[in-house]
């Protein structure tokens, strides 16, 4: 009985560990892509949707080579240069970013990527006014996604 319990405990611990980067099943065609300064990693913007009072951005970081990534959501924002406005990632009432965070790290996500792996990131912003049809998305360690059409 004891060895069996040990096995289950190990399995349970493995399942409770933080979300590991995984192979993406049949990813959708990206809206835009950018090279990053993480070697071999390309960022693909796959969703950029306004719904209610929020805008949700989804990105897939895909690696061609073994690499690391780290995104601190305090450095992520939308910029409407024409209106002179900047929108930051939303936080809940406990101060955690409403985004794909790493377990134990409510302000960021990070991890290792093997060649061929990818990881999905998402984040929510206050929605720009309805008459704003395009806006730029800035993330650390890569050029901004400029003038991305907002999906309504």
């Amino acid at each position, binding site marked *: *009985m004891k060895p*069996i*319990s040990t096995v*289950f405990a190990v*399995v*349970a611990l493995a*399942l*409770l*560990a*933080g*979300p590991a980067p995984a192979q993406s099943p049949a990813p959708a065609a990206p809206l835009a892509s*950018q*090279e990053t300064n993480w070697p071999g990693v390309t960022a693909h913007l796959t969703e950029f949707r306004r*719904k*209610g*009072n*929020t805008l*949700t951005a*989804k990105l897939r970081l895909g690696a061609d080579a073994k690499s690391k990534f780290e995104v601190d959501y305090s450095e992520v924002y939308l*910029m*409407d*240069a*024409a209106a*002179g*406005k*900047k*929108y*930051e990632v*939303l*936080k*809940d*009432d*406990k101060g*955690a970013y*409403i*985004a*794909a*965070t*790493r*377990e*134990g790290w*409510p302000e960021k996500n990070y991890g290792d990527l093997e060649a061929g792996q990818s990881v999905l990131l*998402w984040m*929510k912003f*206050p*929605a*720009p006014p309805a008459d704003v049809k395009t806006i*730029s998305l800035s993330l650390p360690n890569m*050029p*901004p996604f*400029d003038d991305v059409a907002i999906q309504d």
Partner: protein
Amino acid sequence: MFRVALVPLALGLASAAGAADGVPYPDAWALETEAAAEAAVARLGADRSRNIVATTRGIVGLDLALGGGPRAIKATVADLKRAMADLGARESEIEVRIELPSDVLFDVDQADIRPDAAQALAHLGTVVRGYTGPVRLVGHTDADGSDAHNLDLSRRRAESVQAWLVAKESVAAARIATEAKGETEPVAPNDTPANKQRNRRVEVVVRKR
């Protein structure tokens, strides 16, 4: 005994997984996530956006100096790479070297920038602004004309490029130094029109930092 023990263990695992993988918001479109986001927006009230002017003063200054509207503030890594490729830049660990053909920049025996040189100089501006180090502009001529005339012409041409970078491309004047070499440092023998053309140039050296 074994099966009985499995049930609560399995339930425990499901419950733990449902406790959100240990992260507050495992799914972007889960009802809980959307509710938290809407609540966050409501808490922000009228402060849902920040004013760029207050937070990125330097960028706005560059925008105004460029006179190109809000889009002009966004020079990306890709823009820099493209500009360097268009100019045929040679890059080392510490500097970027570019040779601008004088025939593109100036009319014969003149030192005023030709209007159609604007695109090449805009690319040069992108490269120069992409780095923080000092910039050296070195004017060269072919061997036609007297030494003194060519020295003066090469000086005036280097200074014209400097003035353009300062006035049109928002490069700080203090970063740029000019030199005149006249006909003293040819890159080819002055024996054919093609070789002379190669010698008529403004050499740009941008230290990366």
